[in-house]
C-alpha cells in the first residue's frame, strides 16, 4: 500500500519517540513556519568549534515534520560541520527528487534513518514538512557561525 511508503515504521517510531526534543542552551535560535499547514519549529544549535554539540528543538506539526526533526537530531549531533552540511544537502536532494531517487547503500550510509523519507518525496505537499527542521538547522547554524566570527 502506497501510504506505507510515506509512513515507514522508522518515521512513525521517531514520531512517537522523538530524539532530543526540548529546548536547551544554544548559540543561535531560529523559528521557522510552514505557512501551508502551520507547522512550526523553534530550533537551537550549539557548536563546539567546528563540531555540532547539540541541536535542540520544540515545535508542533505533523508526524513527518516531527519525525524529521528527531532524525536530524540523531544524525547531526556530534558530527563535524562539513559532514553535517553534506548530510543536509543529500537529504535536500532526496526530498526534492519527487520519488525519482531510490536510495542505495551509499546513500543509506550517509543518511541512515533519514532514507526512510524517500517515500515522502512523492508527496509535494509533504516535502516542506520533512524539510522544515533541516532548513531551520541550516539557518541557525549560519547564524551561530556568524556570531562566532563576529
Amino acid at each position, binding site marked *: *500500500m*502506497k*501510504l506505507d511508503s*510515506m*509512513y515507514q515504521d522508522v518515521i*512513525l517510531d521517531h514520531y512517537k519517540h522523538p530524539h532530543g526534543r526540548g529546548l536547551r542552551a544554544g548559540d543561535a535560535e531560529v523559528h521557522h513556519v510552514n505557512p*501551508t*499547514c*502551520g*507547522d*512550526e519549529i523553534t530550533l537551537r544549535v550549539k557548536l563546539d568549534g567546528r563540531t555540532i554539540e547539540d541541536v535542540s528543538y520544540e515545535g*508542533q*506539526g*505533523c*508526524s*513527518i515534520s*516531527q519525525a524529521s526533526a528527531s532524525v536530524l537530531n540523531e544524525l547531526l549531533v556530534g558530527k563535524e560541520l562539513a559532514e553535517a552540511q553534506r548530510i543536509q544537502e543529500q537529504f535536500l536532494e532526496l526530498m526534492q527528487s519527487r520519488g525519482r531517487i531510490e536510495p542505495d547503500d551509499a546513500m543509506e550510509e550517509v543518511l541512515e534513518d533519514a532514507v526512510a523519507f524517500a517515500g515522502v518525496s512523492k*508527496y509535494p505537499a*509533504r516535502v516542506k*514538512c520533512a524539510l522544515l527542521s533541516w532548513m531551520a538547522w541550516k539557518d541557525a547554524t549560519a547564524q551561530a557561525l556568524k556570531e562566532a566570527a563576529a
Partner: protein
Amino acid sequence: MTPLPGLLDTEAIRKDFPILDRTVHDGKKVVYLDNAATSQKPRQVLDALSAYYERHNANVHRGVHVLAEEATALYEGARDKVAAFVNAPSRDEVVFTKNASESLNLVANMLGFADEPYRVDRDTEIVITEMEHHSNIVPWQLLAQRTGAKLKWFGLTDDGRLDLSDLDEVITEKTKVVSFVLVSNILGTHNPVEAIVRRAQEVGALVVVDASQAAPHMPLDVQALQADFVAFTGHKMAGPTGIGVLWGRKGLLDDLPPFLGGGEMIETVSMHSSTYAPAPHKFEAGTPPIAQAVGLGAAVDYLSGIGMEQIEAHERAITEYALGRLQEVPDLRIIGPTSAEDRGAAISFTLGDIHPHDVGQVLDEQGIAVRVGHHCARPVCLRYGIPATTRASFYLYSTPGEVDALVDGLEYVRNFFG
C-alpha cells in the same frame, strides 16, 4: 438507514458534475469533501464557457461588430443574473472582481482614499472579528497600517460563536467600518447580522459582509442583510475560478473613489487628468474576466434552477447527519458549533493528537478529500489553542454515504496511528 428529510436527488445532480466520477489511488471514486475551499463545476457551466469561447469571444463594451456585441450582452447579462441572485435593487451595484479577496481589498482601499464622511484615517476605527478569513483580516491590517486607523475585533466564545457581549465598546462613534463573515469557513458558524448592523448604523459605520461561504449555500438577499457591501467569490458557488463579486449600495459606489485605474473604468482621459465612468464600470479596470462572468452567470442559473432554499435544506440535513456521526468517533473534537443551528456545512475537528496533516493524508489514500491546516483563519486556531484542524465541507452533491465514508476513514486513521 431511513433517508434524511430535505435531501436533494443527488443521484441526478451528481451526473452534472463530471469530476465526481474521477477515481484516485487505484480506482477509488473521489469523495470530495473540500467544498469550502472550492466547489466543483457542473457541465452547464463548462458548456457556457466553451460556448463563449467557441462562438462569441470578443472584448466587451467598445465594439460595433457582432462578436463584441454578443460578448458584451453575455457579460452584462451575467451581471443581471448575479444582481437577481442576491436581490440587488440595481444591476449597477454588482462589481465583478477576480475573487472575494479583491472585493474586500477594493472596499478597504476605497475607504482609505475616500473623502469624508467615509474616509478611514488615524482618528477612526475599523472593526472585524477573530473568525475572519485572512482575506478579511489582512486588507484591514494594511489599511490600518497605511492610514493610522485602529483595528479592533470581536472575540469568540468557547463554542465557536461571536462574542458580542462587548458590542457597544467594540463598535463606537469612531468606527468607520465593520467587516465580518456571514458564515465562517473554519467554524461553520452563521453569524447574527442584525445586532451588528443595528449597532453599526447607530454610529454611522459602514457594514461589509463577507458572504463567500454563504452565497453558494443559501438564499442571499443583500437588501434583507442591510449591509453596505457584500463580497463573494465565483469558484465556491459552482462557477469558474478568476471571478468574484462585490455588491455595494449605489450611492456609495457613486461617491467612493476608484481603486484600480485603466481601460474600461474611465469616462475621458487626457494626459493631465481623467474622469471616471459610473459604477460599476468605475471599479472594473482593464479587460474584465468576461468568460468567467459568463460562467458565473451559468452557475447562478444552475443553482437557482435547483433552488437555493432546497440546497440549504439539503446541506442542513447532511450537516446534521455528519455532526451526529462525527461525534461517535472517539477522540474527535469539533471546533465550532456542534449542532446544525445557525451553521453552515463546513465542519472542523481535531482527532486526538493526530496532526491534521496526517489525518488528511491517510484519508486521501482512501479517496476522501478533506482540507487540513488553518484554513486561512489562523487566529481561530490560536484562539482554540490548536495548530490546525481537519475540515470536511459539503455541497449540494454531497451524500450521507460520503459522510459514512468519512467516518469509516477516520476510524482507519485512528488505527493507523494507534
